[in-house]
């Protein structure tokens, strides 16, 4: 049911620009107004969300320690999984953000006869996640060719490596295939694994389908139904120069692609996609485990009622004296 809802949502999203461009001639709306609005919502929304998180303090230093702490000098510290200083934290965060370190650790629990439990490492989720995120990033970088004039050289380098295998005309990009395959895997996994399906919300299926839709329309435009790429670039360059105009005859497929992207951008700050920012702010990962070395300050630390020694001695003085324990007041 949730899956059906998600499908409908994405189909409707794809149908909107089709109808708008095809029948209502709303190219200004879909080509200028919505992209501007989406980018504005994206930027302001992300900043708003980050600032909102930042307004809550981190009262305690609670890193999850996944290795030996800094201890006696002859005991080897695991500086990346249990960092004690800034360098280690940067290393840990880099591993986490660039290599998905924690996900790489993933295991699959199996219960066999006996009973006997075993935990085999399971890298498929990690593999799909890393293929997905890196492909997405590289594709984004490649799109910079439509956002710059002249196109910087490193874009060519990325394009050449990505399109190294000269398959088809125009050359197939490996990341295009990887992205679609990875998103498909992540979606199928969510549908097929009973546990994951049980925890999944509509809000989990929608982004996957949305991104798949974006990838698919992109691939269709590149390899099957050519759109006017010069027009696309003119539109984009006009937008970023704040002299927007929509060239004629770009192709409806492009507007579907653009609208899905705009939706993703606008949806981003209000969804779980904010894990992009959140991963930097997770107190279990971005803090050094130097708790006993450096005092951590809690800005809202407040005095509390305690049971003082005086109160304690008052209650038990006689008993203490009876067994010869020293007391403050005789």
């Amino acid at each position, binding site marked *: 049911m949730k899956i059906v809802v998600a499908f409908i949502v994405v189909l409707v999203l794809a149908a909107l620009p089709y109808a708008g461009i095809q029948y209502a001639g709303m190219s200004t709306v879909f080509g200028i107004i919505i992209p501007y609005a989406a980018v504005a919502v994206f930027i302001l929304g992300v900043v708003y969300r980050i600032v909102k998180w930042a307004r809550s303090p981190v009262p305690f230093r609670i890193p999850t320690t996944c290795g030996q702490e800094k201890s006696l000098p002859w005991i080897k510290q695991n500086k990346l999984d249990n960092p004690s200083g800034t360098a280690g934290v940067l290393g840990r965060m880099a591993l986490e953000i660039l290599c998905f370190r924690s996900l790489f650790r993933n295991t699959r629990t199996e219960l066999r006869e006996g009973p006997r439990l075993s935990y085999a490492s399971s890298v498929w989720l990690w593999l799909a996640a890393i293929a997905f995120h890196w492909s997405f990033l590289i594709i984004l970088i490649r799109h910079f060719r439509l956002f710059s004039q002249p196109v910087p050289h490193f874009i060519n380098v990325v394009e050449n490596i990505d399109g190294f295998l000269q398959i088809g005309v125009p050359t197939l990009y490996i990341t295009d295939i990887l992205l679609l395959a990875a998103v498909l895997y992540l979606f199928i996994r969510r549908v097929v694994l009973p546990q994951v399906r049980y925890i999944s919300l509509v809000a989990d299926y929608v982004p996957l389908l949305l991104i798949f839709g974006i990838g698919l329309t992109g691939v269709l435009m590149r390899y099957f139904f050519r759109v006017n*790429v010069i027009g696309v670039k003119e539109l984009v360059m006009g937008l970023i120069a704040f002299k927007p105009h929509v060239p004629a005859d770009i192709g409806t497929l492009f507007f579907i692609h653009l609208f899905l992207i705009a939706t993703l951008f606008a949806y981003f700050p209000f969804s779980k996609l904010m894990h992009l920012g959140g991963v930097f702010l997770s107190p279990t990962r971005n803090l050094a485990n130097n708790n006993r070395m450096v005092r951590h300050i809690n800005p809202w630390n407040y005095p509390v009622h305690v049971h003082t020694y005086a109160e304690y001695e008052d209650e038990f003085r006689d008993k203490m004296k009876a067994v010869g324990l020293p007391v403050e007041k005789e």
Partner: protein
Amino acid sequence: MYNSGKIITGLVLFLGVVTMPFWFNIGKADVKPDPSLDTPVIRQMKVKHCIESKQFMIDNHMELLNAWRNAVVRNNKTIYVSTAGQYFTMSLEDTCFHCHSNEKQFCDQCHTYANIQPYCWECHVKPVEEAANGHR
């Protein structure tokens, strides 16, 4: 806001990256591609028309060329019957470049703009740009 130093740095970086397209192009002239049709051969044409419609050629020239080369090399078919019923030798050099003898002013205009780097020229010879070609 807490940890404001780090968070503001992060936000500035984020804003820098996402707004890069905006400031990357500041002060750069927006040179739109302007494929020139001004070649001696085209000048002589009474009705200036490519082998297929302009839009079709813009969208599909590479597929057309690909189909052509398969037909010529693998099926010894050498003639293309256009949708208008015209006949053309399927040859990049003999047909395309015959009119479009101004690679820089024609092909490269869009290719450079859209950052498309075809590897045609590794084998096929760019038309010799005669002085009279394409200069307006």
